[in-house]
């Protein structure tokens, strides 16, 4: 089988799912301002929201990350992918599951697990795909032709191991218990889905792309080590911070708050390392084209989201921000702002290599970056401002609930407007990548392929 087929399949497919997910997002935002739009069962707001999160997480981000790693790992390890056939089978199965899952969600056949709505037996099949991915990752590392494992490999190995337990706990074990105990397992899953799947995979990709793109060695090896080993210890404790002031044991809340705060350590280690690499790169060329820009902005969003997290977990701050639009803004900045930016940078980097020619248009890539970034800043900001307004409005018992909702009208309009620009800029990205793969443009030269040895 041709080398990198699996990577190509998954990257193209993930770009399509990205569009589907953003469509669901914009429709949901529309329903917040005009709730009577599309008033039918299959387009009701909660169904769209479930589809938005699941397609984004599994269809776009996880798939893009897996596809990128299928390409990156063999290059780091100077070998071939362990089994291209297994990769292709897994990519096919995974996409079939995703389509079936989307249909189930639209029909309302769902689990009560946030981010894990995909019902049985499809969720078991997702786990099967994950095991197939794990076999390929471990196999590729085992047949490597270099002695040392690079940082990206540590993070990928970690993600593969951690996610297996996190996914099974959240999707299968949680269904066997009830009440607050179930809630605890579900939030363990929800939080670690972000923290132990998308964080390590995104950071792994950035650890490869930043030094490679800037042609500069990574700033500090020691910081890489601190970042990795501390995150593997502290992240997993934090799930219960979604239930602060709620009915679960007080000690569990306190534990999650303490560990949420200690997350500042690994995050700062990683960010210092990334910025340090940017700072030591040649000045003239370090921001050329969309790739370094996306990596830089993704890192900036990563700082913001990871500083918000620990402070939101403090009891007094949580009283205002929890359950409001603020949290929606926070989640968007982590998954869209930080990790989708890294994934898009990865797609811009790997797609031309897979196609064997240059990116269709760097200018279009720059335009996509600026449109998306300039729209995403107000997008996040209105969610936070709206969330704080909402939080304080709830504190005053003189406000009826509908009055506190009315205060958010402008924020919801603004979210729709800025979301629409983000949605528009996606098409620039999609067009650029599709042209790179399939378009007919003159520049067949400069086939700067990097063949694995």
């Amino acid at each position: 089988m041709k080398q990198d087929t699996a990577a190509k399949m998954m990257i193209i497919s993930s770009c399509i799912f990205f569009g589907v997910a953003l469509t669901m997002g914009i429709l949901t935002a529309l329903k917040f301002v005009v709730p009577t739009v599309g008033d039918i069962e299959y387009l009701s707001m909660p169904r769209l929201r479930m589809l938005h999160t699941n397609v984004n997480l599994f269809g776009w981000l996880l798939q893009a990350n897996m596809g990128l790693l299928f390409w990156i790992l063999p290059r780091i390890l100077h070998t071939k992918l362990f089994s291209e056939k297994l990769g292709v089978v897994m990519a096919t199965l995974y996409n079939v599951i995703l389509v079936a899952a989307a249909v189930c969600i639209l029909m309302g056949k769902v689990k009560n697990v946030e981010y894990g709505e995909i019902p049985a037996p499809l969720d078991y099949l997702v786990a099967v795909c994950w095991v197939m991915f794990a076999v390929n990752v471990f196999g590729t590392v085992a047949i490597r032709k270099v002695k040392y494992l690079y940082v990206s490999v540590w993070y990928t190995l970690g993600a593969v191991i951690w996610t297996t337990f996190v996914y099974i706990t959240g999707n299968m074990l949680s269904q066997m218990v009830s009440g607050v105990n179930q809630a605890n397992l579900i939030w363990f899953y929800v939080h670690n889905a972000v923290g132990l799947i998308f964080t390590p995979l995104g950071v792994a990709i950035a650890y490869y792309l930043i030094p490679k793109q800037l042609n500069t060695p990574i700033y500090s090896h020691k910081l890489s080590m601190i970042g990795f080993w501390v995150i593997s210890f502290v992240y997993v404790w934090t799930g219960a911070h979604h239930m602060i002031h709620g009915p679960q044991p007080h000690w569990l809340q306190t534990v999650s708050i303490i560990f949420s705060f200690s997350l500042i350590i690994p995050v700062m280690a990683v960010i210092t390392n990334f910025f340090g690499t940017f700072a030591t790169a040649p000045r003239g060329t370090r921001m050329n084209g969309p790739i370094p820009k996306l990596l830089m902005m993704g890192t900036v969003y990563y700082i913001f989201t990871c500083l918000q997290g620990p402070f939101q977990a403090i009891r007094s701050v949580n009283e205002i921000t929890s359950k409001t639009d603020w949290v929606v803004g926070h989640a968007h900045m982590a998954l869209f702002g930080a990790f989708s930016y890294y994934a898009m940078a990865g797609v811009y980097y790997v797609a031309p290599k897979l196609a064997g020619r240059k990116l269709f248009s760097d200018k279009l890539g720059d335009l996509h970056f600026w449109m998306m970034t300039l729209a995403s800043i107000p997008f996040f900001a209105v969610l936070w401002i709206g969330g704080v307004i909402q939080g304080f409005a709830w504190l005053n018992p003189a406000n009826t609930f509908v009055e506190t909702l009315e205060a958010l009208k402008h924020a919801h309009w603004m979210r729709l407007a800025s979301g629409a620009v983000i949605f528009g800029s996606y098409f620039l990205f999609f067009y650029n990548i599709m042209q790179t793969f399939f378009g007919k443009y003159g520049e067949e030269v400069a086939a700067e392929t990097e063949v694995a040895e």
Partner: protein
Amino acid sequence: MKKLDVERSLILTAVGAFLFFAVGAALTTIVPPMVSPQMWHSDHPVHEYTEQELRGIDIYRSEGCVYCHTQQVRKLDSDRRRYGWRLVEAPESESWEYVNDRNNFLGTKRTGPDLARVGGKYSSEWHWAHFKDPRNMGEKFPNRKGIYEKVSIMPSFAYLTDEEIHDLTAYIQTLGRNKNWRVDKNGKPLNDYEK
């Protein structure tokens, strides 16, 4: 002696990453129900759901009500006062109240109000009209009309069959009733729940 070099070994990296993770994973998932049995055990009588209410729970889940409505009165004055009713504050939610919930709907987002103590606050007739059209509840509830018409962004669930709305309402009327919280100053039950 050969130096132990983690970065050269697939096994050491993988095992190390797993062990570091396993400490926190075990202490936050397996240990809590052992240390705090109130997470799954109740000393008080807890309502067993009827067939109809269980169907209602399935509808509540597949319609995704939880994405806008939490089911927890937090340990905050603002929550207790806002979700109280007719001059009685809502008591905070306690973990034993949920032990029979095979599907928990504690939730993380409040676009609409909390539903932890909503059972008995509104008549089933009110719920019927509200599910059909949250922005125009008809002639029977004229005083609700003005502000709801303008502001509510709840989707209309008019596509549910009559039977489904009955099932869903039956479930909603149980919420928060494991604790008989409608009591006067002397602790005597008021028994003023709506049917």
